[in-house]
């Protein structure tokens, strides 16, 4: 019973923190602060995963999400705005509509959950090593394996990388002649070269 009590307390504590940081993520006026809050949410989710007996996933979460995605986000914040500038406040109407939509969503969804019997299954023992089990599932060629999406996701990451680089690339390489449909020289100079370090620029560029 005491084990259950610890779990319960842990759940509510992490849930509360997680919601707090989530709200901070979406309301903080400094983007960098929001990114830090997001990182906390993601780390706390890793905690949830541990509680749900998914230790491997918790590791992935910390490595990929916190170590990768959040870092990219921070980079982009640096590239597109100044660190110490405040984001402008959204218009009141937008805030009201957003809150209405979010509360509406939460209300209906929670109402659905409270009236649903999810039919929690019998207590089967979780696989001893979830990492091994996940690895096996990913490489299983049989009817319960996920080798196809595994291949697909590798292509997705490749395509995202190629597409991302193509879009974010600054200017055509010098070897690219004008007839190929690259940027005009005039358009290249249209972009000030040192823009990302300019403290005046940013999302809040007034």
């Amino acid at each position, binding site marked *: 019973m005491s084990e259950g009590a610890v779990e319960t307390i842990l759940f509510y504590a992490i849930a509360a923190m997680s919601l707090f940081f989530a709200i901070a993520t979406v309301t903080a006026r400094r983007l960098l602060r929001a990114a830090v809050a997001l990182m906390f949410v993601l780390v706390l989710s890793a905690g949830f995963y541990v509680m749900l007996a998914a230790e491997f996933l918790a590791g992935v979460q910390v490595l990929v999400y916190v170590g990768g995605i959040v870092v990219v986000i921070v980079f982009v914040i640096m590239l597109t705005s100044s660190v110490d500038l405040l984001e402008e406040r959204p218009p009141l109407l*937008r805030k009201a*509509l*957003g809150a209405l*939509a979010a509360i*509406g*969503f939460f209300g*209906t969804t929670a109402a*659905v959950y409270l009236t649903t019997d999810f039919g929690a299954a019998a207590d089967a023992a979780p696989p001893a090593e979830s990492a091994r089990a996940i690895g096996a599932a990913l490489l299983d060629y049989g009817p319960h394996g996920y080798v196809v999406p595994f291949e697909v996701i590798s292509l997705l990451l490749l395509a995202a990388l190629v597409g991302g680089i193509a879009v974010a690339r600054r200017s055509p390489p010098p070897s690219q002649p004008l007839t190929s449909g690259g940027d005009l020289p005039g358009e290249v100079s249209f972009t000030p070269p040192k823009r990302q370090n300019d403290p005046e620029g940013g999302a809040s560029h007034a």
Partner: protein
Amino acid sequence: MSGAVAALPFILRNAWLVAAIPFVSFVFVGLVLRPKVPRIAGVVATLSIFAAAGVAGGVAWEYYHLFPPGALHPAIVPFAFEWLRFMPGLTVTMGVLLDPISVLLLLVVTSVSALVHLYSIGYMHGDPGFGRFFTFLNLFTFSMLGLVIAPNILQIYVFWELVGVSSFLLIGYYYEKPSAVAASKKAFIVTRFADLGFLIGVLILGYNGYTAFGDVGPTVAREVTGRIATDLQPFDFLYLTHPDLLGRLAAPALAVGGVSLLTIAMILVFMGAAGKSAMFPLHIWLPDAMEGPTPVSALIHAATMVVAGVYLVARLFPAFAFSGDALTVVMCVGAFTSLFAAVIGCTQDDIKRVLAFSTLSQLGYMMFALGVAAMDRPAGYTASMFHLFTHAFFKALLFLGAGAVIHAVHTNSIWEMGALRRKMPITHLTFLVATLAIAGVWPLSGFFSKDEILAAALRGGHPVVFGLGLLVAALTAFYMFRIYIVVFLGRARHEHAEHAHEAPFVMWAPLALLALLSAVAGFVPFGSFVGIGAEAGHEGIDLAVAIPASTAGVLGIGLAFLLYSGDGARATAGANALGGAYRVVKRKFYVDELYLFVTHRIIFRHISRPIAWFDRHAVDGMVNLSGWTTRRTGSLLGALHGGRVQAYGVWLVGGTLFLLLVLWSAAF
């Protein structure tokens, strides 16, 4: 192909040629001649239609050779190929259906079209779009013929739309004129709107026909196997008009809100027919359609395309008759249109518009003739087809004559013409023949067909419709002679009219031929050629009908002469000079005044003009209003897409919640 088909004469087996020849010519003229040598495009196009007319003649000859006049005239399908296969057992074919009315229409369409083609060589001479014009004209003829020979309701729908497209192209032929563009758009949209009803009707008929096909189909097929060549399909007219199926459709189990499904379907189909045949209130496109070149008006908007609606009702007549209520709707709409258009026709000053309203009125005549018929009392059916037949000739003649006049005086207003009798003797003579024919003067063709319609109305137990018919006959005679007198008699009212001269040979030759046809077409013993259900013989002239009808016509003519002949100025001058005869003249003047007062002040101002105004503004206004509403809706909805992506997001989330709530509330 079954053995029964192989036994048919060559020309019947290959009746598809009648539509194929204009099609080949259309492609050839359009792709090869038009860009390269437009000058001979007209000749080739005309020759092709004459060839088609030849084939149509051959088909008619063989058909009546096979089924002699007076005997039963079954519908045969000598040719069909598979077109759409929905699933095994539900196939739609393209083919040829031959029965008296399709043979009749083949003859009318090809002959009038051939003459109009010939006439156009002269009329359109020197026009920069000469090749284009004949391309479209060929396309139109092809689509109309495809419509006429359709053996199933889907084929007729397809060609129906094609006819609409080619008519759109021809009305908008003078695309530099904004009014022509507007008119073509209006025609297309109004008829498309009507076709929507048609399409839904087709779907209802098709779907219910298909579901009943398993039960009813084999019986019907056995019954008609001897007559048709291909397998019976659920969309075929032979099946859709069979009483076994109609009984199914009219069953109370299928009724919606107390109205039987058959009636609903037939009224929807009639909506399409009313659109093409310009029945009230879908008639508004036809007067505007006169923006097209005059030969087009003659061919499409007088003689052929506009009768497609009448033809469709005749084609599905057994279904209309079975429903009963639907046929009553046809009758009422037809009768009302006929009167309404005749009243407006009295007030128009543009010669083509007068003829357009006269066309509306005559189409209404044909419609209500169908409406007063029944399967066991088919006189109205025969009379309607008879009137379609005669009307095609004299109305085409009227339009071509008007075209020749317009060609000569370069104006459409009758008040800028006058005294053309001497300048254009052949045109005058032929126009007079057509005017007499449409006014119903014995022994010209209009007399006979109108007589049959009126007789059918009287004997069918519709005295009100009969009376209405008489009134319309008088009005027709009046407004036709009004324009005849103003245009051809009296004095020249404008300098153009003084310098007019006769049309060239290629133009007056068709006029003469059509005049001949208009004069003699009435003597065809029509009843022994065309009928439905119980065969009706030619009944001859019924004096109880002929005398009132002729009287009405004569009254109308007399009134027209009284009002429009002579010359006010000359009368006044004469009165001044004569002095002694002053009183007599003055009294005559009183009579004139009285007439003028009654007609112009009362009838015109308080009846005709308001009706014309209502037509222009209220009925047209409805169409414009619906267009405006659509645009306005588009504007309002478009404004939602204001470029703020988060607003889009709110809509998305709202949409999700909406879906959830709908699903949830529907389930509990």
